[in-house]
């Protein structure tokens, strides 16, 4: 009898152990904080929303402020992930920046839709040398100088005042750095778009998602995209005319028709390889399932090789 009782207790004990399953592996909770590039902001917000649908206990806080803020915050440990819309500098890597490329987008030059020379500008575009004369050497003081005509209409040059990836990438296209871009410094991507919108003689640049309307996919009312004369022919050929709507420009970037820079990869940066399971899972999801939402949000997906590289980097291989 005692042996039967002992056996029953032992059996009950063992079956209890077998029945107590571990908690589901997907039950993540906590907060992930991101800050930085205006360029990545819409994508990060979208990713945050979708990730939350899978893991309701996770909150993703996203803050803009420019790529410089993203890197500074990430390296200072103030946020989990910094959003950076430019290449990471060696000195930042030395300070511990661990960057994963997550998506691609581009910077486009912008003018006001009410520019008096609009038709001429749209039909001939500007060559890279003209952009350098406008922003770097400041030898183009009038629209005529930029276009190569005798026109004396004044040119108002705008750039970004905050340390940001858009300016750094646009400067990289002109083979310089952000501090070499001369012009009136306006704060933030939306600020620069607004300044160009209101100044009929203005010229500026924006990330795609701040130059195009997210709903209509057309350029923002009041803004036109200044075509880049890539082959220097003095005319915008049909092949170079890729700016009608957001889908056209993203396709052009994906196919390499629009050069990189000013198109570039966007990075999420952490201080050292991320260790917290929540961050690792978020990054893994971004490089995997998260890529589904890239096209609808107006970005360009990365190639499978780059995504695999990223995944390996996270795992430390």
């Amino acid at each position, binding site marked *: 009898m005692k042996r039967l009782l002992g056996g029953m207790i032992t059996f009950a004990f063992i079956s209890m152990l077998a029945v107590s399953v571990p908690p589901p592996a997907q039950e993540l909770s906590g907060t992930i904080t991101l800050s930085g590039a205006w360029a990545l902001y819409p994508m990060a917000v979208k990713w945050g929303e979708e990730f939350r649908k899978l893991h309701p206990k996770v909150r993703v806080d996203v803050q803009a402020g420019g790529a*410089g803020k*993203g890197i500074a915050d990430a390296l200072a440990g103030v946020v989990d992930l910094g959003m950076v819309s430019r290449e990471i500098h060696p*000195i930042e890597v030395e300070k511990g920046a661990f960057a994963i490329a997550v998506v691609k987008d581009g910077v486009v030059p912008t003018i006001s839709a009410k520019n008096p020379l609009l038709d001429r500008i749209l039909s001939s575009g500007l060559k890279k040398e003209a952009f350098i004369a406008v922003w770097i050497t400041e030898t183009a003081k009038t629209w005529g100088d930029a276009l190569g005509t005798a026109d004396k209409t004044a040119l108002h040059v705008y750039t970004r005042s*905050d340390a*940001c990836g858009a300016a750094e990438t646009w400067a990289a296209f002109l083979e310089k750095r952000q*501090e070499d871009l001369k012009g*009136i*410094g306006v704060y933030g991507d939306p600020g620069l778009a607004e300044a160009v919108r209101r100044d009929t003689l203005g010229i500026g640049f924006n990330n795609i998602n701040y130059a195009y309307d997210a709903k209509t996919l057309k350029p923002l009312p009041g803004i036109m995209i200044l075509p880049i004369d890539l082959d220097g022919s003095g005319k915008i050929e049909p092949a170079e005319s890729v700016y009608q709507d957001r889908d056209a420009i993203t396709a052009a970037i994906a196919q390499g028709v629009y050069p990189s820079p000013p198109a570039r990869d966007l990075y999420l940066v952490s201080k050292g390889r991320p260790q917290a399971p929540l961050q690792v899972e978020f990054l893994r999801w971004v490089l995997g399932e998260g890529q589904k939402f890239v096209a609808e949000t107006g970005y360009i997906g990365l190639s499978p090789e780059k995504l695999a590289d990223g995944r390996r980097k996270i795992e430390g291989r």
Partner: protein
Amino acid sequence: MLVLTAVPTFLVLLILIGLFIRARPILAQKPFFSLFFSSAWSPLKGDFGLLPFIMGTLWVTFVSLVLAVPISLLTAVYLSEYAPLSVREFTKPIIDLLAGLPSVIYGVWGVLLVVPLVGRVIAPLFGVTSSGYTILAGGIVLAIMIFPTIISVSLEVFSSIPYPMREASLSLGATKWETVHHVVLKKGLQGIIAAIVLGLSRAFGETMAVLMVVGNIPRLPGSVFDGGYPLPALIANNYGEMMSVPLYDAALMLAAAVLLLVVLFFNVLARLILVRVERRAA
């Protein structure tokens, strides 16, 4: 409780010391002259001339004072000496409200209204083409931000002048304006100076509103229709590059320390003057 009171005082000191410690690398490496008197600003090439920013701050603050002081003083005189009680009671809370508005609201309003005003109306009046993002725009926005400071301190100064003094002047046959001019303003001069100095130190430190309208061009301004780049805007805009360029963080900390010292100096000065005024009134 004494300890609790000492905390804010020590905090200011701690901040100042902290800033100077972080600024030491650049103070050690670069000659003093090239930091404060050079206008070359090219951090990647190692040029950290703070002169354009110091001049930008001085220009914007000076413009704002020129605009704010006459209007604020006259407003304070009107509210104190001429206005019926109902007008005074109605206006004072509104002026205090102005003081409480966040800086970024002034900035957005400045971008929407002041910048086009300067670019499309004021600049052409003087025959200058300008985008509107100018020192003048920054000065206008700043002037509105320091109205409440100067007005409320001046009102307190005027109310501390004993009424019998005004009565004595009026009884001698002076008109109201002569009384105001020779008695109130003269007696209140020290207090008015303190009010102006307090407004000045607020103007020095305003960041967000100014950086949205001032153009952020790191060059010595040639006129009020040029863009400028005050010290607080420098720190706010480039905080992000701190980690990415050698000595940049030390340069920005130095700029912050300079700004803190200037504001501290003017605040202490204003307080000393005000203490003297109050002691005399008592």
